[in-house]
Each structure stands twice: as C-alpha cells, then as structure tokens.
C-alpha cells in the first residue's frame, strides 16, 4: 500500500466577484456574485514509502493547496486523501506526530520568542524523548549552522536564519512524511546546497517520504527522481524528471572562450547568443546542430576553450508548460 494516496482530489474556493470602483462596491451589496476558484481540480497520485517527489508548477498552480490538504489543514471539496493510512483532515494527534509541513512563506515559530522556545514546545507537544531531542537538535543546529541564532527573537532573524529554524522545528520529532513548500526560499547559494544535502540525507536515513515544492529548479533536479507537474489545478505530468528533460530539452548550451575578438553578428549566424562578454560567449544551439556548431567554432573561430552543456532546467520546464 502506498504511503500517500490521493484520489480525485478537488479543492474549490468560493470567491466573491466584485466589480471595480465605488459603483461596483455598492452593487455588490445588493447583488453579490460568487464563483468557484478551482485551486485543485481532480488530482490523483500515489507515493511510496521513502520516495522524494518534486511538485512543480507556476504560481497558483495548486501545489500549496494540495500540500495543505495532505497535511490536514484544508478539507477537500471532493475526493479522497490518505496519508500513512490516516485521513488528514481528521487531524488525529497520532497522525500529526508523524508528519510535518514547512511553509517557506509562513512563519510557524513563536514570533516574539527565541527559536529555542518553539523547539522546546515541540519537544513536549510531540512527546520526543529528552535524549532523542538533544541528539536531533544538536545535529540539526550544527548542520544548519545556527548555534548563534537560537537565543535571538525570531522576529529579529533574517529570512534565511528563520527558514533554518523553521526546518529544525519541523524535524524535531523526526516525521515519517515531510511536506516542504519552498524550503530554500531566501537562502544563499551555499546554504541552499547544504539544505539539499540535508534533505537527501534525511530521506535516506529515516526512509522518510518527502514532497517538495520549489521555484528553484535546481532543488528539484538535485533531489527528485520523480516529479509531478501541476498547472491550473490539474496534473500535467507524473514521472521521472529525466523523461521531461529528454523530451523537452530542444537545445544545448555551448560556452566558448575566444583568444581574439569575434563580432556578435557572426556568432548569431550559428545560433541564439545567450550571452557575449568577450572573451566569453554562450550560445543556445538546437540539439541536432550542436556537434556541427562545435566543430565549426573550433575550426573557423579563434576558440581557445569550448564546453557543451545541457539546457537550463528552468528553460526546459518553461518549454514544457508552453507545449502543454
């Protein structure tokens, strides 16, 4: 049996439609019009124990709403959701002790108190044994390098520092299922990398099932073998990330370093010039022509170094959305 089972999940919000301006405001008093926003519209998927799945889609696609339904914050309008055999919206304490939801854009720590107080509260609420708490906290604090911030009021922390503390608070009880909504938001590149390593390690060590949403495609690329692509509340794709890359990567990036000046116009004859700042240039070349262009650059241009790379994952996903 799958750890997470979602069958025909729908979540609609009833929204008041107001016409613009003062007149619209008066009219809405007498003739109030409503319509349904289909945040999630007939979504089904299964996730097995220990899977690390990327949930991707543009803003307003329905990613966060789905995670909120899975964590029990929202009642589904229709459909069935089961996580670890529980119905999330029943919010049984036994269920809540086995999951965690981290929302990058929503604070879950006590705003006016140091983060350590929230950790201590979670220890008691989740009934974490003292020795396990100390060990887990020690590991997390060291890994995320927050030794100096534990005793500072949360409201005085930077976004990055706060995110690290949010993550610690969510992991104190070692949840079996982890919902991560934009966990790397606001973090610097080094810390993003650390956090990815940590998530990967956590997934392996605890055989934890993780669903991750992120706007940084690098997060998804590095962590998730499987992705679920969602837009307008509908699943567009569910499968290996590399299949999307194979199918939708239409170009390769050719990076060149010249030892003599070359005009941009001449380069443009070979393909789209993504960047040119002598002596470096980056060209986007259609897949079938990339080898030929590379040979041409080496033979006919003053090239001292050349490198062929895969297309940026963001561009591939953008292409996917365009074609879907």
């Amino acid at each position, binding site marked *: 049996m799958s750890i997470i089972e979602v069958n025909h999940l729908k979540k609609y*919000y009833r929204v008041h439609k107001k016409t613009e301006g003062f007149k619209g405001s008066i009219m809405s008093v007498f003739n109030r019009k409503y319509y349904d926003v289909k945040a999630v519209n007939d979504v089904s998927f299964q996730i097995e124990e220990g899977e690390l799945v990327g949930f991707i889609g543009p803003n307003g696609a329905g990613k*966060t709403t789905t995670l*909120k339904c899975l*964590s*029990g*914050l*929202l*009642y589904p309008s229709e459909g069935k959701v089961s996580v670890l055999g529980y119905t999330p*919206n029943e*919010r049984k*304490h*036994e269920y*809540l*002790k086995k999951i*965690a*939801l981290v*929302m*990058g*854009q*929503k*604070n*879950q720590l*006590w705003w*006016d*108190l140091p983060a350590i*107080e929230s950790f*201590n*509260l*979670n220890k*008691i*609420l*989740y009934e974490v044994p003292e020795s396990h708490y100390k060990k887990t906290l020690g590991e997390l604090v060291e890994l995320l390098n927050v030794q100096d911030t534990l005793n500072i*009021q949360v409201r005085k922390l930077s976004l990055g520092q706060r995110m690290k503390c949010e993550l610690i608070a969510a992991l104190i009880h070692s949840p079996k299922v982890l919902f991560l*909504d934009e966990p790397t938001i606001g973090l610097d590149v080094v810390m993003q990398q650390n956090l990815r390593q940590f998530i990967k390690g956590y997934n392996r060590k605890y055989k934890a099932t993780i669903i991750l949403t992120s706007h940084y495609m690098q997060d998804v690329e590095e962590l998730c073998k499987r992705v679920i692509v969602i837009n307008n509340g509908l699943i567009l794709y569910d499968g290996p990330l590399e299949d999307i890359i194979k199918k939708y990567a239409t170009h390769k990036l050719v990076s060149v370093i010249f030892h003599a000046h070359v005009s941009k116009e001449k380069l443009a004859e070979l393909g789209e010039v993504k960047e040119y700042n002598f002596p470096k240039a980056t060209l986007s070349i259609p897949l079938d022509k990339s080898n030929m262009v590379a040979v041409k650059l080496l033979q006919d241009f003053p090239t001292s170094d050349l490198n062929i790379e895969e297309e940026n994952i963001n561009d591939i996903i953008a292409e996917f959305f365009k074609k879907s």
Partner: protein
Amino acid sequence: MFSKFKQILSLELQDLNEYKGDLFIYTFTPFILTLVLMVVWLSVLDFSSGNNAEKSYIVSYFFFQLIVARLVGAWHAPYLGEKIRQGDVSKYLLKPASFIWYDIAENIVEKIWKITFSLPLYIIIGYFLRRNLFISWENILPFLVSLIGAMIIYFLIEHLIGLSAFWLSETGAIDSYNEVFFFITSGKLFPLSYVTKLIPLGVINILPYKYMLGFPLDVLLGKTTGQTLWSDFGMQFVWVVGLILLYKVVWSKGLQKYGGYGG
C-alpha cells in the same frame, strides 16, 4: 496532557512579557470606569436618601467587581478572528494539541499578570473603603463555583465570536453587540437588583451575561441565596454546557470552511 498545557502556559507567559508595557497600561484602565460607577451610584443613593446598608452594598459591589471582572474576563475575539483571517491558525493546527488550549493558556497568564500588578491598588482602595466592605463568608464556596462557571461562559462567548471569522471577514460588529448586551445585562453598570424596572428580570435571567459577572458578585455579597441560588446555578450550568456544545459544532464546521490563506 498536563505537561503539554504547562509548556504552552510557560510559552504564553514569556510571550506576554514581550508586551509588558502595553499590558501595564491596560491593567489600570478598568479601575477608572468602575470607580466612577461607584461614585455615581453613591450619589444616586444620597439623592434618594438610601440607607447605610445600601451604601455598603454599592461600595462592596463595585470594589469586588474590580477583582471579579478581572478574574472572569476574556478579550481574545479580535485576535483570534485576525489569526483565522490571515491563515495564522495553521501553525497550531499542525501540532498535536487542541487549538483552544493556546487561548486558554494565554487567558490564564494574562489574568495572573494583571491581578498581580493590580494587587497594590486593590490593597490601597480596599484600605480606604474598609468600613463599607463586606462579604458573605458562608457563600464563599458557592461563589468560587459560580466564578468558575462565569470564567467558562465569558471565555467561550469570546472564543465563539472569534471563530465567527471562519464565515465573516470582520468580527468587530458581533463583538460590539456582545459588549452592549454585557454592559446592560451583566451587572457591569449597575447591580442587577436595581434594574428590574428597566429590563424584565426574565430577560436578564435567560441571557448568559448575568452569569458572567452579576451572579457571582451577588453570591459573594450574600444577595443571592436559597431557591434563587440553586435556580441561578442551574441556569449557569445550562449556559456552560450549551456553549461547550456550540463551540464543538462551530469549531468543526469552521475548520471545513478554513482557507489557510497565506504561504
């Protein structure tokens, strides 16, 4: 369960300490209104040649109202409404502890804080009024029971108003109606035995507000005894049970409406 609640209490107390400046100011504002009311009613008694026993009753009524109102009070409806509107309830819903315990803990620590810091003022005012102060010692136990009932009713009404934010975008209107009814029918502005000509006693007896303030005060001062004491206790109990049931229904229905906005 108790260790969880104890930890929540400790956290709420620390949180409250961050706002001690505001709290300190709020602590003393109720003294002004209540003492003014005491003076007004004493003047009315002078004008109508009221006897000394009646004057002592007025003095004792408003003096003990200062303490009882503080013990039974709750004021979290607007904050709770805002938490629901902004989706800030989510962080509590994700934790294995009932949401209401956070508000109960906050209410308790705020009362302890305010009572503690008001203590010198209670002693000073009490010292000046000592000749007119009395309580009914044999009613102490019924008073304590009525006080607990009053606390529960007050808290639940305030909580239910806050929970109305699941359906309404602004809870202020309901809150202000609640406040008006409370002022008129709870015994806040005048002892309830004085107003039966203005408002029929039947109406006062059936509404919950009397059981939130006037009833425990009159029990403490020995004004409510015998058959009336038991029937008032009965009515207070009905309100406690009714409000607990209503809270359970509203909370469960409200969660189904919850949008969890933000984030």
